[in-house]
């Protein structure tokens, strides 16, 4: 498989780390997040697990700016992102996928990935109208997008409408979009839920490769087998709280966690 070019990896210590302090969020009296304090490693794979309604997706929504916490703060390195708009957070290299796959289903797969490319000249009105140097940048973006499609194994479907891909392929496409956006931190909401076991293996393999590239992958998941296979750390949530955090072997062996959340 052709490996996409990635930006030169800085040493682990120099990468700004994502951390949150005392995050709280209420919906109509229901506390979705309760004093969530968490420091993510600068790279690796972190799984967030817990029963439905534990606050996992709410945490992802807060960390990507789609929800504002009632109290508490979160940071990327020294930058506080608590009140920052979602698109600005994305531009800082934090990309996400959604449980309900969000794609532009009517346009080709390649267009979806090209949309994700950052700093596009042609997204400015002046350049869109007069197109100085636009063709060259479009060609580079196309090439870059194709490389990420090759990385996830969708290059053969590049010109098919995204809506015609299988569910599993659409999950791969959302991953390619995050990567084309040059994200260093990927927050994935149930990346292997509802897909064929072969596709699950493929996605988990890609997550391992991303870890090898020095990226931080945070994923919410109910599939404990997948979590055991790839996660370096596990965060267990319940009723908006973090009730356990550590290495999978250590956390998932605790009887109370096994009994209550793992089965």
């Amino acid at each position: 498989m052709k490996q996409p070019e990635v930006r030169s990896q800085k040493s682990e210590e120099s990468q700004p780390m994502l951390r949150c302090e005392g995050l709280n969020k209420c919906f109509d009296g229901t506390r979705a997040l309760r004093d969530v304090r968490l420091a993510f490693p600068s790279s690796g794979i972190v799984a967030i697990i817990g029963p439905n309604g534990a606050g996992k997706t709410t945490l992802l929504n807060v960390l990507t700016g789609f929800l504002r916490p009632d109290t508490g703060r979160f940071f990327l390195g020294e930058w506080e992102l608590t009140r920052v708009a979602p698109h600005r957070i994305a531009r800082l290299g934090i990309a996400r996928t959604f449980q309900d796959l969000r794609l532009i289903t009517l346009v080709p797969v390649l267009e979806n990935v090209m949309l994700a490319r950052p700093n596009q000249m042609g997204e400015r009105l002046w350049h869109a109208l007069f197109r100085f140097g636009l063709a060259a940048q479009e060609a580079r973006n196309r090439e870059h997008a194709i490389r990420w499609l090759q990385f996830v194994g969708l290059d053969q479907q590049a010109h098919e409408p995204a809506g015609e891909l299988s569910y599993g392929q659409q999950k791969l496409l959302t991953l390619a979009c995050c990567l084309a956006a040059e994200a260093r931190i990927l927050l994935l909401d149930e990346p292997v839920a509802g897909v064929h076991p072969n596709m699950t293996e493929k996605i988990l393999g890609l997550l391992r490769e991303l870890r090898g590239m020095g990226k931080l992958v945070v994923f919410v998941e109910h599939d404990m087998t997948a979590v055991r296979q790839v996660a370096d750390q596990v965060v267990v949530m319940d009723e908006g709280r973090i009730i356990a955090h550590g290495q999978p072997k250590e956390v998932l062996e605790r009887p109370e966690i096994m009994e209550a959340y793992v089965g």
Partner: protein
Amino acid sequence: MDYVVHILILVATYMVLAMSLDLLAGSTGLLSISHAAFCGLGAYTSALLATCFGVPFFIGLLAGMAVAALISFIVSLPSLRLHDDYFVIATFGFQMILFSIFNNWIGLTRGPLGIPGIPQPILFGWHVSSRLDFLILGAALAGFAYFVVHRIISAPFGRVLHAIREDEVFAKALGKNTLYFKVTAFAVSAALAASAGSLYAHYITYIDPTSFTVIESILIISMVIIGGAGSTWGPLVGAAVLVVLPEALRFVGLPSGVAANLRQIIYGSLLVIMMMFRPCGLVGKYGFSK
């Protein structure tokens, strides 16, 4: 022959209006019911500058476009934070406000009396006086609007507009400042609508508020829907059909009172039929709703 040319001039003017609305409604998914108001802004700005200060047509045209873009910017900042139906209602409110200003600010617009004696354009020494001249000018303006809209849609800018139409959350998650794109599309759309208004004012040489009512806005929306929202040719086809079709009724021999009402029935029936059987319009691909 003059009559046919007159109809073609109206077709060209409505093509500009339909294309500009399609940039907003078809490509971005923002249905605006204030397009006639922006057309009116261009018409009044250009007409007032020409009649009060003798400003040349071209400068008046640009001034009208600038005023419409500026007003759209001011209106869009609060209204574009609204979603779907609420945005539609906000633009409807703006349409009503602007119509009231056209109708009631007597000192500026002369209200229902309108502005007569708007001079015919002189463009770089070319006195646009005959209907054929106006047709050439109208066609040039429609060509300009097509160029602008097509360039925007086929560039990465257009890719983001489509993303906003399909799924704004997805666009935001990919780092796109969707408010910037919506405000810009709204401003370009309003400016192009104003250019059509300016042409209309200098062609008819008289304007009054009844030319810029909500009914006109709905007519322009009908053109976009019937032609095919979000498609290159849809608004052009829609404008041609909805301008030419009612004119054809003149030759059926109906009394004028009946024909006028029949037109409204035809618009309504066409919209219902298209929504039921061909929601993507005559030549469109995607349909109007998200």
